[in-house]
């Protein structure tokens, strides 16, 4: 199983990666990208089973990335979890409409991420 973590903050990528490793994955099981453009490049080059993405990022933001993933390429059905500071109801609705499978507001606990990851992967 391959996971793609997309966040412009290196600290956040490491935090998420750390939680993912606690679930039993190794470092080789996930890749990191610092914005939507780099994530899209990785998605075009390889196959991923799960995408964890931030919203506010330079170059291409998370919402644009989700819309692009759902619209084109080989990952139109891949589970996507958005992990962001955007906690407004309107933003959550916008993200869900764009095609995210789950939504986590920062700051989050490892337990929450584990639950959401489990939920998405079971489906």
């Amino acid at each position, binding site marked *: 199983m391959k996971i793609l973590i997309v966040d412009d*903050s*290196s*600290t*956040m990528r490491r*935090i998420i990666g750390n939680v993912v490793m606690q679930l039993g994955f190794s470092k080789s099981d996930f890749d990191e990208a610092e914005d939507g453009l780099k994530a899209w490049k990785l998605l075009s080059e390889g196959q991923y089973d799960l995408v964890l993405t931030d919203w*506010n990022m330079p170059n291409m933001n998370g919402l644009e990335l989700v819309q692009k993933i759902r619209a084109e390429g080989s990952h139109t059905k891949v589970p996507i979890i958005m992990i962001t*500071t955007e906690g407004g109801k309107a933003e959550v609705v916008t993200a869900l409409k764009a095609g995210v499978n789950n939504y986590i507001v*920062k*700051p989050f606990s490892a337990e929450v991420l584990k639950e959401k990851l489990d939920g998405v992967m079971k489906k």
Partner: protein
Amino acid sequence: MSMSQEEIEALMNGIDLGGDDDTQESTPVVEEDSQGTLSADDIESLINQTKNEEVVEATNSNSEVSDDDIEAMLASIGGITDNTPPKVEEKPKAAESKPKKEIIVDNDEEIEKLASSWASKKVEEGIFPYPVTKDHKPINQLSEVANDSEEKASKIFDVLSFILDENNVIQQESKKIDEFLNKQIALMQALSAKFPNIGVFQANHQSAVALKDSIKVIKSKVDAENMQLFEAMELMQFHDINRQKIERVMAVIRKLSGYLNNLFEDDGSHKEVAVAKHIHGDANSDLVGGDDLEALIAEFNK
């Protein structure tokens, strides 16, 4: 009083009749004034000046500081007289202090230091704004803070990860010790059961059990430490949250800057206009009223 032609010529050529240096200094003034227009009375008065040092000094001061005349005139005009006496008193003080300053700041470094400290003082007093340098640009500073804290947060994360990795090693090694102790306990238990009279087996068995308890304590301590580390890692999310708050402030400043630029921008076709220094209504004691103005003009036109 009468003068011979020689004396007159000597005076006009700058020869010292009284043997005093001051007279030589005063002679050029005479030359300027006496270009073919000196009357006999003028010459007489000039000769008197050369004989009398005090008179010479007086003439010197007259010729050097013609501003004094203006000040004296201003002093005689009503309304301005109140301000002039302190000015006259201040002037010599300023004149005394000025040369001192000039002596102190005779090299570029000193001048720069003085200028710098003076400017800093003005900035502290709120008279001057902060200079437009990289260090004083808010967006630049905020950007530096965000980037630097990101870098430091990453380093903190490195430290936490290192401790976590080391704890994992401790746990793995503890497992090995635990496995060995389990075997040791079983062996000693069997030996002490078979040879109850040999106390060493019993003692070793008890020691192994005690060590196993110690290992349990170490394990639980490492687990607790790991929990704390995970909590610290979770808390580091606030770095990202705070960075985004800083970015929001930066965005507000950028918008505001753009707005102010739009508001105050000029098409650039206008030439720079000279600005008045003293305008009616200003809180300035140097302003001249209507009567003062007329008096000044009249005095100058005499």
